[in-house]
């Protein structure tokens, strides 16, 4: 074996610890193979130096022939070439031979070792049987030789001498000795390792301590520590090896930092040299010797050092199966290098670093791919994606640097730069020379042409994006997308760009990131402009114009964009509609009046509070709000509808977030929790089982809501603007100027047709641009109602007195009707209530809010049938008032034709009179029928008048003489003067009524009465029936004579003629001069017939007559109401009276005075006696009208429906009624009183003197 020839070179994995062999080479060679095989078989535990954790290691060795040169000189730090163990082989068995040759050889060997202070040696004595078999003579027991060697060399360390017996035999003995040998070797090796490495490390540390001293070189130290690392690696202690490199890494980093901090180390100089080569990391060799040498020579650049360090770390990490740590460390390294170069102010060619980083990223990625399968890589792209993204960035900046990112071809200087950069890459490394996808090739190609660059860049970007998406790093993915978009923009491909931007925009919107939002939106605007997507562009511009994140100038610019488009007059087809609330927000809406309800044609104002988001004041040609109109049937009178329910006093507040950057959807408000108390009572006794708090709307709150619903705001995509449909109904204002911030715009709402008006859309027109709010929420509306004209009449002063001119007020609410010129009210005249023509009658016209708008005099024409009042023109929903003087004629009770027609064909409504509950006066309802211009039907109005007077009349007689008394009672509250009192009888000319009333004027105070008396004089004979009319003029007290109004009272008297006279006489008892109380006296009654048969009586009596002589039956009756008299015996009786003048009849009745003094005569009644046969009842019996006047009769008919009947007929109706009763009663004799005046009682009010009785005291008793 000639291994001693080759100089051990460093090639890590092939390295083994060196073991030298001296002595019998042949012997060794024979055993080498089995030795080499068996040594590593058993692992040994090694407790490393510096308290490293014990590890099991498999020892191998590189056996070389012993040479002195192999032994390390002083200060030689090479560990790899260090012989850890020296073996001396011998199989000598006879003493002679030992003494003669072997011993010296051994001694020499020992001395050389000792001279180099190497104590790691062992002597192996191999014994075989055949040697024994040779010369039997002069044989020493072998043991003696072993002993000799032991005693000669290993004094007190016998273990340095090992016997290997029968190594080539398959005997248990041989195996055993092998094992012990191997064990020994391993132990010794490890001891040697520990010792030598320990020493080495000590030296290394001391060297490190010196690092602050001048002249200390990092590179030297680097080599030393790396030696250690190599050894660990050699011993497959990769962990420990890695530690060495990490320490070096940290140390170097620290230096750089310190340098940054100011204290410079001279050795750093080399690293500060300008970067000339940026060929990137090289990870395909276990050791990059070129770089290592350059480090050794102290000529390495920073990048070289870093690259070398990392390549070593990378190798070890991969040995350790930690590829992902590689990627992570790689990223840190790259960042770090860039930083360090900055820190050390190393001059670098523009783009050189980008190349270096780019290549390095790809190199790392390739290296990883080289040692992992696809599945692993896919699973771990979270570790690699960073490198991809980084590479992408770098490539992009390179592209930009080299003018490859543009629509044009690169300029010559771009090309020069490219060439320089490529030069810096040097030649491709042999490792990658034949791989097609090498980073080197990639970069070269990418920089070769615009197209190639695009291809590579896109490939990388998409790779990065997909990875990000795969691991759910959406934001990062979008960010890559954004830079991709920027790339596309540079390439003049806005279409592709926009899609990426929109993607990004969405996330910014949904997460509420205003600044990136604004920025992205601007880029989008750019795209849209280039794409000529006007609508979208304008929409975006609007958003930007209202974006606080931009400067005023920028905002103005975007606003100008809108204006300039809007300015483009021309094809109306090119109207653009944009969403309103990016332009201006409707914040408040107010109705005037607040009820938001108005009569048709009335004025309703809607005040909008608009917050303009624009930077400058905007002139709007038209601001319109479209209206949804709904006719509501059954014309409501200002009843507010649903829409108003939201409003408080006609004000609606709208709250919407700032559209440019509102809170994200996730932060949107959700329904508020509604809790309540519950009580659970036991069904048996109503006692509480339990109470609690429950939630009433859990279902709403816990509803699974889609978390990623984009908020309701115009964002990325241009909002769905419903084109403003030109509804007929609109709120419109022309030429408004919206200042930035709040503006109040006042509309006058259309209020023509009655119904409900809902505001739907809002639309602001700026030239060709329309800003539209597709719906207004909460829904807002107002209401228009319509009102019929109304005419009312009311007394100016209560009560209206009949018979006197009274003022009544006419009130006309025009409602929806407009009173035109020439409109007139047609009042049908009625003679019971004429309208008094007045010279100046003015109408006042006032608005609903009761302010006077006009006054004008009415012209009133009266024909005999109608009075027409021509009205002044009056706008709708106004009030017209005027007053008329009317006179209600007091009914006299004269005959009238029934059912006379009015001029307008209406049935005349007779005034109904009745006594009013709260006044003693009799009321008369006067109906007025008025034809109004707005209606084909006539309006009926009723006025109630009160008759101030109650009138009574009575007939008085004195024997044959007759008197008529009329009593006028003033039941009103007014005082009157009564004048020209007259009583007339119009049928009998012969008749004369002589007045006893002296005064012409009489005061008739309220609640007082006036009595008037007339004597009736006649010539030949007195008519049985008198038609009298009492008339007087009256006027409220102290008014001039013109004010006097007539008052008529008509009545009729019947059977006025006196038929009988009754005379009575009381005669004292015989022998007495005077009547005495207690004593019976005679009452002598004498009834005398005064006239011939009067026509009223004829028929009845003729029947009763037996012989030709006409008689009539009378009945008399003495009754003393005052109980002054006691009638003794028969108090009444029948008298048969011949019906001829002066027929007389006497009767005597015993009466006894009960008191003394002047006693009035007892009453004597005379009555008609009608036998049962009489059929009288059938014919009208005038007598039932006794003591009657028309009014009192009218009273009776209060409830009488037949109000067209005349007073007279009414009377008869009544009597007929009574007649019926008489008939219904069994036909039996009847008594009937005479009408007053038919019987004259002379003794009426006559008195007689009665003396007291003699036995006073008894009488007293009686009296009491």
């Amino acid at each position: 074996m000639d291994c001693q020839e080759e100089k051990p070179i460093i090639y890590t994995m092939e390295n083994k610890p060196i073991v030298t062999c001296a002595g019998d080479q042949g012997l060794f060679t024979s055993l080498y193979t089995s030795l080499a095989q068996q040594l590593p078989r058993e692992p040994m535990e090694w407790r490393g130096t510096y308290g490293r954790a014990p590890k099991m290691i498999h020892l191998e060795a590189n056996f070389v022939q012993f040479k002195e040169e192999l032994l390390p000189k002083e200060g030689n730090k090479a560990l790899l070439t260090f012989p850890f163990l020296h073996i001396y082989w011998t199989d000598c068995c006879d003493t002679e031979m030992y003494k003669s040759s072997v011993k010296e050889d051994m001694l020499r060997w020992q001395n050389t070792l000792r001279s180099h202070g190497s104590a790691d040696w062992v002597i192996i004595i191999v014994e075989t049987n055949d040697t024994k078999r040779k010369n039997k003579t002069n044989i020493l027991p072998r043991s003696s030789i072993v002993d000799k060697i032991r005693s000669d060399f290993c004094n007190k360390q016998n273990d340095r001498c090992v016997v290997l017996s029968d190594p080539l035999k398959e005997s248990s003995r041989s195996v055993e000795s092998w094992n012990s040998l191997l064990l020994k070797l391993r132990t010794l090796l490890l001891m040697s390792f520990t010792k030598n490495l320990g020493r080495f490390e000590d030296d290394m540390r001391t060297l490190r301590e010196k690092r602050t001293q001048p002249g200390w070189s990092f590179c030297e130290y680097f080599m030393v520590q790396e030696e250690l690392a190599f050894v660990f690696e050699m011993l497959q202690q990769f962990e420990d090896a890695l530690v060495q490199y990490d320490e070096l890494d940290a140390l170097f980093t620290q230096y750089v930092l310190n340098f940054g901090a100011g204290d410079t180390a001279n050795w750093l100089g080399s690293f500060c040299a300008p970067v000339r080569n940026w060929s990137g990391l090289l990870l395909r060799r276990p050791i990059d010797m070129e770089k290592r040498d350059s480090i050794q020579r102290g000529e390495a650049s920073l990048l070289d050092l870093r690259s070398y360090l990392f390549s070593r770390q990378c190798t070890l990490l991969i040995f350790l199966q930690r590829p992902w740590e590689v990627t992570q460390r790689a990223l840190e390294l790259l960042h770090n290098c860039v930083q360090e170069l900055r820190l050390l102010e190393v001059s670098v060619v523009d783009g050189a670093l980008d190349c270096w980083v780019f290549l390095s990223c790809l190199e790392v990625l390739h290296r990883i791919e080289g040692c992992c399968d696809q599945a692993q890589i896919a699973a771990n792209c979270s570790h690699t994606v960073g490198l991809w993204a980084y590479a992408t960035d770098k490539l992009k900046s390179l592209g930009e640097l080299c003018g490859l990112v543009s629509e044009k071809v690169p300029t010559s200087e771009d090309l020069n730069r490219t060439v320089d950069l490529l030069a810096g890459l040097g030649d491709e490394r042999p490792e990658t020379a034949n791989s097609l996808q090498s980073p080197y090739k990639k970069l070269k190609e990418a920089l070769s042409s615009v197209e190639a660059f695009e291809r590579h860049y896109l490939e990388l970007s998409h790779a990065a994006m997909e990875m990000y998406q795969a691991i759910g790093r959406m934001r990062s993915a979008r960010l890559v997308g954004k830079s991709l978009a920027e790339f596309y923009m540079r390439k003049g491909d806005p279409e592709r760009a926009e899609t990426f931007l929109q993607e990004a925009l969405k996330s910014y919107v949904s997460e509420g990131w205003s600044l990136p939002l604004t920025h992205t939106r601007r880029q989008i605007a750019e795209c849209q402009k280039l794409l000529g997507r006007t609508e979208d562009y304008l929409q975006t511009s609007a958003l930007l114009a209202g974006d606080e994140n931009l400067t005023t100038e920028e905002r103005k610019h975007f606003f100008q964009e809108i204006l300039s488009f809007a300015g483009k007059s021309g094809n109306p087809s090119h109207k653009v509609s944009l969403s309103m609330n990016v332009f201006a927000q409707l914040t408040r809406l107010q109705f005037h009046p607040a009820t938001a309800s108005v009569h048709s044609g009335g004025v309703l104002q809607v005040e909008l509070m608009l917050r303009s988001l624009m930077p400058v004041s905007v002139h709007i040609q038209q601001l319109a709000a479209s209206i949804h109109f709904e006719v509501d049937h059954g014309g409501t009178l200002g009843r507010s509808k649903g829409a108003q329910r939201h409003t408080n006093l006609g004000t609606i507040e709208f709250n919407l977030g700032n559209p440019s950057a509102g809170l994200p959807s996730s932060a949107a408000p959700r329904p508020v929790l509604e809790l309540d108390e519950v009580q659970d009572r036991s069904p048996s006794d109503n006692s509480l089982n339990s109470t609690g708090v429950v939630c009433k709307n859990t279902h709403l709150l816990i509803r699974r809501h889609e978390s990623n619903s984009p908020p309701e705001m115009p964002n990325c995509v241009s909002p769905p603007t419903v084109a403003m449909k030109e509804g007929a109904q609109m709120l419109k204002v022309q030429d408004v100027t919206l200042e930035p911030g709040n503006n109040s715009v006042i509309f006058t709402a259309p209020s023509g047709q009655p119904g409900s008006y809902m505001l739907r859309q809002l639309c602001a027109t700026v030239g060709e641009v329309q800003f539209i709010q597709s719906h207004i929420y909460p829904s807002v509306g107002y209401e228009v109602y319509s009102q019929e004209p109304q005419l009312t009449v009311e007394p100016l002063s209560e009560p209206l007195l009949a018979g006197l001119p009274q003022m009544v007020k006419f009130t006309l609410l025009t409602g929806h009707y407009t009173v035109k010129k020439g409109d007139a009210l047609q009042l049908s005249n009625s003679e019971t209530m004429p309208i008094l023509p007045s010279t100046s009658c003015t109408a006042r016209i006032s608005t609903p809010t009761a302010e006077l708008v006009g006054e004008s005099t009415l012209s009133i024409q009266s024909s005999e049938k109608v009075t027409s009042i021509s009205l002044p023109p009056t706008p709708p929903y106004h009030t017209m008032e005027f007053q008329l003087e009317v006179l209600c004629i007091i009914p006299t009770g004269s005959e009238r034709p029934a059912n006379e027609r009015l001029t307008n064909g209406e049935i005349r409504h007779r005034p109904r009179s009745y006594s009013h509950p709260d006044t003693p006066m009799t009321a008369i309802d006067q109906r007025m029928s008025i034809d109004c211009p707005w209606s084909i039907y006539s309006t009926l109005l009723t006025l109630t008048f009160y008759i101030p007077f109650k009138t009574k009349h009575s007939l008085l007689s004195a024997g044959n003489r007759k008197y008529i008394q009329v009593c006028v009672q003033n039941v009103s509250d007014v005082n009157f003067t009564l004048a020209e009192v007259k009583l007339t009888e119009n049928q009998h000319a012969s008749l004369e009524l002589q007045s006893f009333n002296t005064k012409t004027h009489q005061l008739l105070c309220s609640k007082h009465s006036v009595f008037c008396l007339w004597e009736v004089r006649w010539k030949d004979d007195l008519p049985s029936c008198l038609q009298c009319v009492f008339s007087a003029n009256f006027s409220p007290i102290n008014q001039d004579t013109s004010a006097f109004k007539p008052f008529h009272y008509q009545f009729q008297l019947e059977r006025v003629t006196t038929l009988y006279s009754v005379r009575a006489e009381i005669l004292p008892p015989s022998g007495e001069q005077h009547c005495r109380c207690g004593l019976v006296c005679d009452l002598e009654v004498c009834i005398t017939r005064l006239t011939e048969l009067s026509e009223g009586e004829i028929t009845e009596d003729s029947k009763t007559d037996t012989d030709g002589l006409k008689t009539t039956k009378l009945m008399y009756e003495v009754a003393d109401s005052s109980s002054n008299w006691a009638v003794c015996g028969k108090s009444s009786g029948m008298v048969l009276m011949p019906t001829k003048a002066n027929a007389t009849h006497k009767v005597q009745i015993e009466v006894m005075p009960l008191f003394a003094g002047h006693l009035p005569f007892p009453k004597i009644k005379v009555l008609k006696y009608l036998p049962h046969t009489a059929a009288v009842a059938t014919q009208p019996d005038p007598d039932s009208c006794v003591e009657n006047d028309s009014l009192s009769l009218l009273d009776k008919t209060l409830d009488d429906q037949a109000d067209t009947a005349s007073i007279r007929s009414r009377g008869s109706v009544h009597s007929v009624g009574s007649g019926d009763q008489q008939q219904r009663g069994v036909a039996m004799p009847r008594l009937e009183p005479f009408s007053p005046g038919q019987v004259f009682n002379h003794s009426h009010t006559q008195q007689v003197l009665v003396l007291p009785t003699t036995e006073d005291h008894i009488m007293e008793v009686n009296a009491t």
Partner: protein
Amino acid sequence: MADEAPFQFLHSELIQYIYKSADTEDTENGRNISKLENLGCRVGQGLIERLTKDAPRFKDELDIMKFICKDFWTCLFKKQIDNLRTNHQGIYVLQDSQFRLLSHLSAGKQYLDYAPKYLAFTCGLVRGALSNLGLRSVVTAEISDMPACKFQVLIQKM
């Protein structure tokens, strides 16, 4: 944290105030209860922020509920929830056999009909705490025998 006595008094007064200042209609439709609960909610948000300041991050829902039952409750009522049960479907029942805010009302069924209003605030506390920890929930309560009571937490599955 505030000592419990002042807290109890303040709590009682709070309820008194809410119910006095409102009209009967509010009481009937549970507006007062909700009002109390909302107050509690805001307090819970703040409180939990403070309590979890030094706590390690929660592993899961259950982890959070445990925190509510232990630290949160202790901080408020000087004792832990006595029993926590769950169906692992987002429903948790917290039982307190000696609920502090009821203990001074009565022991037994007296005033049982007034008890709910004394739980509303606490319901809010829990809801607020949970919401701030990122769990939307509805918290209700039940009392059958004072001063013991049950809180039921229904957590919305995202």
